[in-house]
């Protein structure tokens, strides 16, 4: 019996093709059942995310089963695609790289681990897995945990939104009690607000020169709209201000904020200036308890995060190789697993 994986991902297929092959959560069980029958699979797991659709299987004839899987998926999707195929050690290595986020669009992202866990749990529930895939996936989760703990692959934010979240968390810790004021109804500001909401922020106030746009976005984001001539009155009560207006001049100067900070006591204020030209006077950053970051600073941090993760990839690959070897060693002791073709070579 051989382990194999076939699939397509963000590198091999565009989104228009990937969405055709995407498997809905509710149809995974029936799909697994049909797939196992048609492709003669002893065990199978289907992983479907926005960036990939993959089938992990165990079969006596991996090549024939992989071909049958590809035919089946194309028939269900009603489209043709080029599938990649990884067998034996390569298949194990591929899964380990996927769960560690090394094969993701944003290297080191951690969402994929949860998605793989869900895919495995679904297959386990309907009895589609056995000793081989159980061992493979359990080992994959161990690799992911070790890589997260022992390397910096998940460290540092790699987008403007996640950088803003990381800074906010280094100021306030838990964001659940933070109040956010969003100035301007642009997409960039809304994206950052959403990122903050995804990390626990519950209270959001929006203000825009056109009140109706603020009200519309407030409905969409679950916040409260405020007339633009009143936004400064909200300053004593908010913790984070995101600004992305098209104002030609500065909206806030150090002279205006200093008395507000005195009234706030010891509570820090985080200012995120996404506007060009900038909405906030850079001198605000010199005030005690005020932390100001503009779009250049956020983008530079995101770029730094990308580079830092790139440097960690090699360490992750080394750890993965140790686990691939461990899995192969286990597989060699199994009489039902193919021995000669299991190779640790990449």
């Amino acid at each position: 019996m051989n382990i194999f994986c076939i699939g397509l991902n963000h590198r091999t297929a565009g989104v228009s093709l990937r969405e055709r092959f995407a498997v809905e959560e509710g149809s995974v069980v029936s799909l697994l059942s049909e797939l196992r029958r048609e492709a003669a699979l002893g065990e199978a797991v289907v992983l479907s995310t926005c960036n990939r659709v993959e089938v992990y299987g165990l079969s006596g004839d991996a090549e024939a089963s992989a071909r049958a899987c590809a035919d089946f998926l194309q028939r269900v999707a009603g489209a043709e695609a080029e599938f990649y195929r990884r067998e034996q050690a390569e298949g194990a290595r591929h899964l380990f790289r996927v769960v560690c986020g090394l094969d993701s669009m944003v290297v080191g992202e951690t969402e994929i681990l949860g998605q793989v866990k869900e895919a495995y749990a679904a297959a386990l529930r309907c009895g589609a897995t056995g000793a081989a895939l159980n061992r493979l996936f359990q080992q994959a989760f161990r690799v992911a945990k070790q890589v997260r703990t022992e390397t910096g692959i998940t460290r540092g934010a790699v987008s403007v939104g996640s950088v803003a979240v990381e800074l906010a968390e280094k100021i306030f810790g838990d964001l659940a009690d933070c109040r956010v004021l969003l100035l301007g109804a642009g997409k960039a500001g809304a994206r950052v607000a959403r990122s903050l909401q995804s990390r626990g922020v519950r209270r959001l106030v929006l203000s825009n020169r056109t009140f109706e746009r603020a009200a519309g976005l407030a409905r969409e984001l679950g916040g409260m709209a405020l007339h633009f001539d009143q936004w400064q009155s909200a300053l004593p009560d908010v913790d984070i201000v995101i600004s992305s207006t098209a104002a030609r001049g500065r909206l806030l100067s150090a002279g205006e904020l200093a008395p507000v900070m005195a009234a706030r006591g010891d509570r820090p204020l985080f200012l995120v200036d996404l506007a060009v030209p900038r909405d906030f006077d850079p001198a605000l950053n010199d005030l005690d308890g005020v932390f100001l970051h503009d779009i250049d600073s956020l983008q530079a941090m995101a770029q730094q995060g990308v580079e830092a993760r790139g440097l960690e990839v090699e360490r992750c690959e080394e750890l993965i190789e140790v686990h691939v070897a461990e899995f192969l060693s286990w597989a060699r002791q199994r009489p039902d697993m193919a021995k000669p073709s299991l190779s640790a070579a990449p």
Partner: protein
Amino acid sequence: MERYLLAGSTFFYLLGFAYSLLQLGAGKFRPGRLNLYAIAGGFVLQTGFLYLRGHAVGRCPITNTFEILVFLSWSVALAYLVVGTTYRISLLGAFTAPLVFGLQLVALLLPSAPAAARRGPPDGWLELHASTSLVAYGVLALACVAGVMFLVQEKQLKMRVPGSIFHILPPITTLAEAMKRLLWFGVILLSIGIIAGFFIGTPIGRIKSGASMLVWLVYAVVLFLWTRNVLHSHRVAQYCIGAFALALVTLPAMYALGGMLAK
């Protein structure tokens, strides 16, 4: 036996220090729990040493510079175990380990100091005064460490692109909260020590009592102004460092106290 316990605890602290350095050097985001275990191990052995020494001298073992340094180091470790683990500021351990290791090392390098023989019954007030004051200094040393961490993290947050230490240090609000708790704890202990000092049978020198009162006053004023929102955490962190430097000046006075206890 005593020296072995002390050497063992110093080894544990060195282990915690070295482990933290290795972790930070490798850019690890979450320092492991080994640091906490190392400090806890060192603390247990230190407690054993102080227990045996206390039995030997028949009182709180702070009769000479050697014992005072060990007791101070024990106090810092105690404060870390209480505060560091409560607030899960594991990195505080990375900053604490070198401090307790340094204090112990200096103590070990001092010429072998035999336990002072008991001369008459101990003065309970004097022992309460000396021991609570030393524990207070240990707690305030940790407040100083938290202050340093606060200022470093605050500077990182003000930079256009923070350095790698930014990812390792805890949030500044957490550090400010730790500073506040440590200041309260330290000031309360210092107050108990000073009050106990008024009941000591043997009068304490004016310089020593004046220095202790000055240190207490600085900390109490800082804490009062902070709770009244007059001082910002940034200034409090600076005062925590400055006031502890001032407190260190009073250590020679503690030595005098040790001499007095030995009499």
